[in-house]
């Protein structure tokens, strides 16, 4: 097993984190998110992203607004809600805590 496959569950679990991180910047639409993750360990596809975005919106962590685009139909631009920002902050703090713990476990 190469590391790619071995750590797939880990990456899958962290995908939501990564997506929240991408959305925390200026408002983005789905293709931006995919492009941003492309080439990273969190590269993903529409088939996975859309259901995930819809769940994040249902959990009121993100919200979108329609914006006209120069080419084609209007797009959904996503941004974090206040709740989403708080959630991301908590997640980041927790993640750093985990890192510290893991670092301190081995000598």
């Amino acid at each position, binding site marked *: 097993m190469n590391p790619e*496959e071995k750590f*797939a*569950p880990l990456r*899958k*679990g962290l*995908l*939501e984190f990564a997506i929240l991180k991408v959305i925390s910047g200026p408002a983005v639409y*789905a*293709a931006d998110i995919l492009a941003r993750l492309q080439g990273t360990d969190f590269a*993903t*596809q*529409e*088939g*996975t992203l*859309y*259901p*995930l975005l*819809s*769940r994040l*919106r*249902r959990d009121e962590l993100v919200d979108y607004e329609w914006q006209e685009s120069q080419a*084609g*139909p209007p797009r*959904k631009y996503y941004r974090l809600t206040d709740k989403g920002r708080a959630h991301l902050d908590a997640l980041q703090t927790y993640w750093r805590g985990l890192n510290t713990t893991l670092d301190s476990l081995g000598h």
Partner: protein
Amino acid sequence: MERVVTINLNGNAWQLDEAAYDALRAYLGAAVAGLKDNPDSAEIISDLEQAIADKCGVVLGPRKSVVSASEMQSILKEMGPVTDSQNFAEDAAPQPKSAVDVEKRLYRLRQGAWFAGVCSGLGAFFKVDPTVVRVVFVLAAVLTQGAALLVYLVMMFVVPSAETSEEWAAAHGLPFNAQEIIDTAKKRFAEVAENQNRAWSRSQRAPKREAKVNAFVSPVQQPATGYGTRMFAGVVASICALVEAVLGLATIFAVWSLFTTGAVLGVEAPDAWPVWGTVIAVVAASIFVSWPFRAARRASFAALGYNAASSEAAYGFFSFIFTVGGLWYAYQYWPAARDVLEPIWLWIKAILAPGGF
């Protein structure tokens, strides 16, 4: 020559060749099935359609207006399988999510059907060639003096027809897996294409016949109601249709007997009533009594996904068969009915005969 299918993806019209269309339909069918417990399913599907539409736009240009099967394959590969994030946390371990096991079920298959697809469905269910089933049915119909035809009629109403890719797979007892469906669709497409080639060379010889190349189809089927519900609706619809037809026949009989004998089954109309008044009362009573059955039948047809026009057509057909069958049966075995029907039959014959007027 290849058939081109025009589809509506989230409000945009696109042209796909038929194999591309089958692949897309299978993908969206799998997406709908995968998201069936998701409350935002419709919105996600429309987002997915939009993304596919955007990708189609990239492969098409001013000189290219049709998306090919291989292009569609790579677009769908780019999209990736639709995974419901609902159970993201629980199933962190990677597992093949595409194969959803479906129970093998009896459906009517309209594809390749001669009539209502009952035999095709039975063939798929028992894994035999539908032609064999048809032959058996015809033999059974002859041996049972037509009772098997009644069985066919009942099944036509009670057995739901396979509308989605998922149901199509269930009808064949195949695991519902998008790739498998695509493969089967391709195989079927190859057969269809071959037949069409033959048909095409025939049509070349035939004088000026217009080939229908564009079919407007919606790629996403409405999420079908459950098998049980549709079966129940089929039973209710056919029972109601039967009751309505019986009531209709009884009304005709009552009116006939009022005019000829002034009584219905020995019960005379009140003396004070004129015959026409009694007839109106009988007809009104019949309409009143059959009204709830008609309402139930319409509701059942609506639950089966038929629109008003085709459900009326189906009902008309069913009641026609029933009426003709009923009259024929009465004529054969019921002397009283025979006495009533004989003059009508002679009268029709006299009119139809040359110089009858």
